[in-house]
């Protein structure tokens, strides 16, 4: 006891003695943004090792040795300040947020925040603020143009339509190419389920990640390469989008934030129609679904019978389609409550989206409730829970594609002289029923568009809960145990109705209900150790265990031939062809570890390893292991360059592998119920007049599957100059995925359509360049420019032996030596020097000969160009999104040409054309001199690939926001604060496209690997609105 006292005394004396040569300086560090105290700011006496950290209120107290007079205040995300304190004993400091270094802390695997400088791989962050500038409700679309290397296609103007996102190109031949979405550490589902039956082809329900409300997002970190993602395991091979939701502020006061907007949408682009020739064929008027009739004003159009049987003069209807589309209206209202104390914080958010589409009678509403709360139970134990409930409801989304109720399909065949508004009365009145039943049609083969939209509705109803709980135990400050369990569970039900009088097979009415019950449950147990080994070295080790259970159940019930019209209930149909009741289960167990060693915060090396056991691989061989290594060096600190022109410079490099397992049940061939189509009738199926039947399934299973492996490396540099006014982040990456698990499409003559095997190798390489410039920065005025550039080169290296190519869909194939999604098909017959070969019998060129490369969907580059300007209370943000190169296939265009609807078909109407080309004769090539009518010429292109391919380039004015923060003096006495008004716009302009009719970004396949394919898509929209935000 005495001994202890003695030691204490000696220590105290020593401290007292020290104190004699020191003085105490104290003060408060606050943030320039909100004036609140900043906890955790490092206060360092320059030239010494003395340093302290501010407390929760931002207060500090530091002993400054004699002879020292400069303090440095530094905090991640803020510009460091050095202050000569002179003789002052109280020094209050306001730190300004450093826009350049806001990304300094990034969220990496498992929600672990890491200093960006320590990473040997590329991670790019988008803050919630930047994400949500225009109140786009689909979080994926809100990322467009904001992250280099991330390619996003939002696929049509369908309300809530799907978006397809890839990072650094497609790497999986036929599997999933989209990144993993992780919300607060728990992977969520981003599937776009579309059933296998033809009837379901027309609908484009949205992808599941769209349920994340951008208003609730604190930040999104995009982990681009496998290194960043390796710890997440199998599904991270395509990168990870890590979403961190907002938490409550540690502020005892209750804060309320309100964000409201209303915006209006119109079609961004409609086809350029011809308005000179009427309905008809061969120059003569007739009731037909084409516009090759007489010129308006000619006698042939006077006093003729129209589709209604009335005698009229046929006139041009230049706006018949434009006027059909309505102005869509979107109301998004969001309110959040938040607050907290030192031991607890919470945030509750509610967002309501209510919108109507450009198609009449389409709508979508969404309610999103989110609660995120944290509680410190004990000094060493804390817990956090977050839960979101999202309800999406649409009475009618409208359908597209080849579905009989698809408006775009109907319009392709709608003659230019038909006044669509005359179809608004879409039922035949009693006593005048014609052979087509109760639907009032202008021609037998097409539905009345109003009938389609008001009677044959396609609705969607999704209830979803995403939630997780985290327990954290920190026995000592260098050791941390975290257990996290989370789930994403939803039920997604689509309901299509077919009223009596619809096209076959629903002439007597019908419906289908297509329901998906999806649940994904994940647990992680993670231990982290973070120790300074000595003054120079710090070691950070993580080990973890992961379990994942994923279930998907599909219930599909189609009913045909209603007993009582208008009742779309399973008890009210006569027939139920091919119900589906499928369950898919998948489970995975993984263990993983990571070690990071750093030297003086200047040199960093790290390694990760993970081993997974998957239920979907062969039982005896279901384990797979994959490692990664990475390193980074902060050159500026290593060479002590601080203070020079270069503020910061870092180089980094990494290498990683990620393994990926298979989908369930691919190991064996199965037997199925036979179904065979009988166009234009119904499918023929079993039981057949009481006799049961089964057929050998279409896919050949494979009991020898091995996991697919993606190997990747990247090098990069991050450099900032001129007081962080210029920042450049550059990455070169290469990745290669081999042993791909694919259901290879094989010729039907094998007796099957596909075969599951490990086939092929695909590589991606490219560069990402992020350039951030602040051309002007004054007290009142700041102009910030960001470029996000990506150029990806994709190549299919090899396929399975004996396999020349794999069909992807829409004529796209995978073929060694060519990029993913190349149209390798027969094209126009041409001579050696490229002249079209004309068929002397027709005067037209013909498709034939060898298959060849007609182009691919891969763009040359993507560039996002964002400018934000703030001047006093005003802020202006403009984002351009430029995609250059690649092809897209539009059958819509060639169908329009076939039917003589678009303006190019004016060519050759009055006088025949002579197609430029040659005729092969025995005497050699002769210039073509055979006239053909324009009608024949334009009809030759339909559903042919080469004439339907167009340049896929575009530049879009993706986002525009002009905001004004009301001076607080105006409302200083009210409880309100931070009142902002803004004009917001999305997709306001499009240019640089290869054809004038269709937005090349749309894709009828939706979120599918076959991209840039369009046939009968609903036009994309341009949106303009106003936004109001305030707090109290």
């Amino acid at each position, binding site marked *: 006891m005495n001994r202890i006292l003695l030691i204490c005394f000696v220590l105290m004396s020593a401290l007292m003695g020290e104190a004699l040569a020191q003085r105490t300086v104290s003060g408060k560090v606050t943030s320039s943004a909100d004036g609140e105290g900043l906890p955790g700011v490092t206060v360092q006496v320059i030239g010494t090792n003395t340093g302290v950290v501010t407390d929760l209120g931002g207060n500090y107290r530091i002993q400054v040795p004699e002879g020292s007079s400069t303090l440095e205040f530094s905090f991640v995300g803020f510009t460091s300040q050095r202050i000569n304190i002179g003789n002052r004993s109280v020094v209050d400091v306001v730190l300004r947020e450093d826009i350049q270094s806001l990304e300094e802390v990034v969220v990496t695997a498992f929600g672990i925040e890491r200093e960006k400088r320590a990473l040997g791989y590329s991670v790019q962050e988008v803050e919630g603020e930047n994400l949500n500038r225009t109140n786009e409700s689909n979080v994926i679309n809100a990322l467009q143009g904001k992250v280099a290397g991330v390619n996003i296609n939002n696929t049509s103007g369908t309300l809530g339509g799907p978006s397809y996102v890839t990072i650094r190109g497609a790497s999986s031949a036929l599997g999933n190419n989209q990144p993993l979405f992780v919300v607060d550490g728990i992977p969520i589902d981003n599937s776009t389920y579309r059933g296998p039956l033809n009837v379901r082809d027309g609908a484009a329900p949205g992808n599941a990640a769209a349920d994340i409300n951008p208003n609730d997002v604190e930040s999104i970190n995009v982990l681009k390469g496998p290194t960043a993602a390796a710890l997440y395991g199998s599904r991270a091979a395509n990168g990870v989008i890590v979403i961190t939701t907002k938490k409550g502020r540690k502020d005892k006061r209750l804060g309320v934030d309100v964000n409201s907007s209303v915006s209006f949408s119109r079609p961004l682009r409609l086809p350029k129609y011809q308005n000179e020739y009427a309905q008809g064929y061969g120059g003569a008027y007739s009731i037909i679904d084409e516009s090759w009739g007489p010129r308006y004003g000619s006698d042939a159009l006077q006093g003729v019978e129209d589709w209604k049987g009335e005698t009229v003069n046929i006139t041009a209807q230049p706006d018949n389609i434009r006027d059909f589309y309505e102005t869509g209206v979107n109301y998004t209202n969001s309110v959040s409550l938040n607050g907290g104390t030192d031991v607890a914080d919470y945030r509750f958010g509610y967002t309501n989206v209510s919108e109507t589409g450009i198609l009449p009678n389409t709508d979508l509403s969404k309610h999103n409730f989110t609660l995120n709360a944290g509680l410190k139970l004990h000094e060493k134990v804390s817990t956090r829970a977050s839960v979101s409930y999202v309800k999406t409801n649409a009475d009618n989304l409208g359908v597209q594609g080849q579905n009989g109720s698809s408006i775009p399909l109907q319009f392709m065949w709608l003659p230019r002289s038909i006044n669509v508004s005359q179809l608004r009365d879409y039922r035949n009145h009693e006593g005048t029923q014609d052979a087509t039943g109760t639907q009032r049609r202008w021609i037998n083969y097409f539905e009345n568009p109003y009938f389609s939209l008001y009677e044959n509705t396609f609705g969607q109803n999704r209830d979803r809960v995403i939630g997780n709980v985290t327990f954290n135990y920190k026995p000592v400050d260098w050791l941390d145990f975290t257990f996290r369990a989370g789930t994403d569970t939803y039920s997604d039900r689509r309901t299509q109705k077919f009223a009596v009088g619809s096209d076959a*097979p629903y002439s007597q009415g019908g419906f289908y209900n297509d329901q998906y019950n999806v649940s994904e449950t994940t647990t992680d147990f993670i231990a982290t150790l973070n120790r300074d080994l000595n003054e120079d070295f710090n070691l950070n080790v993580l080990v973890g265990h992961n379990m994942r259970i994923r279930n998907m159940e599909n219930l599909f019930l189609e009913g045909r031939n209603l007993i009582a019209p208008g009742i779309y209930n399973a008890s009210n149909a006569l027939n139920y062809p091919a119900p589906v009741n499928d369950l898919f289960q998948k*489970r995975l167990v993984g263990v993983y570890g990571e070690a990071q060693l750093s030297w003086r915060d200047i040199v960093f090396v790290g*390694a990760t390893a993970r081993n997974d056991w998957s239920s979907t691989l062969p039982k005896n061989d279901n384990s797979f292991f994959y490692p990664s290594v990475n390193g980074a060096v902060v050159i500026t600190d290593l060479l002590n360059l601080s203070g020079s022109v270069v503020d910061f410079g870092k180089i980094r490099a990494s290498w990683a592998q990620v393994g990926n397992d298979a989908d369930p049940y691919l190991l*064996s061939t199965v037997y199925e119920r036979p179904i065979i189509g009988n166009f234009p009738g119904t499918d*023929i199926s079993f039981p*057949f007049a009481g006799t*049961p039947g089964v057929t050998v399934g279409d896919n050949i299973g494979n009991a020898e599957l091995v996991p697919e492996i993606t190997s990747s490396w990247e090098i990069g540099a991050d450099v900032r100059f001129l007081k962080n006014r210029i920042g450049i982040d550059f990455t070169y990456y290469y990745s290669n995925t081999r042993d791909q698990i694919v259901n290879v*499409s094989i010729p039907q003559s*094998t007796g099957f359509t596909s075969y599951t095997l490990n086939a092929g190798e695909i590589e991606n390489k490219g560069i990402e360049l992020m350039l951030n410039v602040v051309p002007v920065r004054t007290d009142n005025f700041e102009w910030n420019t960001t470029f996000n550039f990506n150029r990806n080169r994709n190549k299919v290296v090899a396929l399975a032996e004996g396999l020349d190519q794999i069909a992807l869909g829409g004529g796209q194939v995978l073929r060694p030596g060519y990029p993913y999604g190349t149209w390798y098909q027969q094209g126009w017959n041409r001579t050696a020097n490229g002249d079209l070969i004309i068929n002397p019998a027709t005067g037209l060129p013909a498709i034939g000969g060898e298959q060849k490369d007609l182009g691919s969907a891969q763009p040359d580059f993507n560039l996002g160009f964002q400018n934000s300007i703030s001047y006093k209370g005003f802020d202006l943000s403009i984002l351009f999104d430029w995609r250059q190169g690649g092809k897209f296939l539009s059958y819509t265009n060639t169908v329009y040409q076939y039917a003589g609807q678009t303006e190019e078909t004016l060519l050759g109407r009055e006088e025949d054309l002579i197609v430029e080309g040659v005729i092969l004769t025995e005497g050699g090539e002769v210039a073509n001199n055979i006239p053909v009518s324009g009608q024949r010429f334009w009809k030759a292109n339909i559903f042919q690939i080469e004439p339907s391919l167009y340049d896929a380039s575009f530049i879009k004015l993706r986002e525009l926001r002009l905001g004004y923060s009301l001076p607080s003096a105006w409302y200083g006495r009210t409880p309100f604060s931070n009142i902002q008004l803004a004009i917001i716009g999305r997709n306001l302009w499009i240019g640089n496209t290869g054809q004038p009719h269709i937005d090349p970004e749309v894709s009828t396949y939706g979120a599918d690997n076959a991209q840039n394919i369009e046939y009968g898509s609903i036009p994309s929209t341009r949106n303009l609105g106003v936004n109001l935000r305030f707090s109290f």
Partner: protein
Amino acid sequence: MKIYIKKIYFVFTILLCSLFSCEDFLDVNENPNNPTDSEPEYLLPSSQVVFMTLHHGAYNRTASLWVQQLASSYSQYEEEDTYDVQPSFFSFEVYMTALEDAAMVVQKGVEEEDPNIEGIGRIWQAYMFSVVTDLWGDIPFTDALQGREVIQPKYDEQSEIYPAIIGMIDAGLAKLNEDADSFGSADLIYGGDVQSWVKFANSLKLRMYMRMTNVAPAVAEEGVRSVVGQALITEASENAELAFGTDPQNENPIYQWHADPSRRGDLAASRTIYTLLSQRNDPRLEAYFQRNTPAIPGADADEIIGIPNGLKQNYPAGFSIMNSNLIDDPTRPAPIITAREVYFLRAEAAVRGWSGESAAELYNSGIEAAMNAFGITDESAIANYLARPNVAFPANAGVEAQLNAIWTQKYLALFLQGVEAYSEWRRTGVPAISPARNNITGGEFPLRFLYPQTESERNSNFPGVEQITEPVWWGLNLNN
């Protein structure tokens, strides 16, 4: 590090296994949705129904248009009707469905040593292959249906496929055994009756040997001689047919096309068959077609009107659709091989001197059977018809005139058996028809189906596009 990780593995594996058995946790990959094995009793009906849906449905329609028994009245089928077809119009789904299921029936029959399962399976598969090669010419045959063993099947020449199919029939016949177990009701054609399958097999061989008369006359003669005296289908009750059902998913394909009122007028009587029938005052004209033409206002409602093929617009006078008996009965059976066809084959054999039978009798029996098949049973009406100068068998004329008479009557008999009518027309050139109007082939006839797009996309052994205007091996080149 590795050792460390291994320790961690160990700890966690223990931890995990204390909660669940590891094996059990991951043991969820048994497919709960579909079986992984089946029985011939379920596979044969699948094969029969699917094949006859294609054969009586899509194949029949295109063939009937091209052989001008039907014509496209509205634009629904105007591409086919003007020979303006694309590879995407055609499909080899027959391989992955009907043919694969039959192959599995044969395999199960061999494995389980069930001679009738194997035998019926082989004969049925041979029949289907004969139809597929008749339509497409050279097709994947020896390499076909091998699944993962051959994922890029090569194409065999039709001249080699024909004898191979006949070999399959013989192999099947050799297995058939009346004393052994057979299919029961699962055989939707013959209820597993072995003797009926013997007759079917022989009749099929007769058809196939006769098909080779242009290109392998010696083989044809020898084959016909060998089979013409065997048990053949001679009675309507022995006809190979597949009856459809009343459930919407079991209906006759042609019925289905007409079930939707808006589709009812898509297919009309072709002027070619209309002319041949009306020239003979043939009672089948009324049995095949309807008088009224409901869709065309102002047309004469009391005429049967045949319209030219390839018209691409409404015919001003209207048109006739098929008789209500043919399109309003969902269960109407699809013929496969019938006694009437066999009579005409035997008549031809007799004319060629390959049998001792009476050509005239067989010819008359064929016509009578054909009339009966379409509900014309009035014997005096049939007798009157048979006595008409342009119908009566030209017993005293030359072989060519006799064959012409037989082939013409066969063409008239094979209504709604478009595939066989089309094949026989391609073999014989009878009746003489003119190319469809507005054809895009420069006046050439379509003499085969196009290979489907899936083959050119997926099969590296795809031999290249054969234009529809190229004849198949056994066919006449009607485009010269």
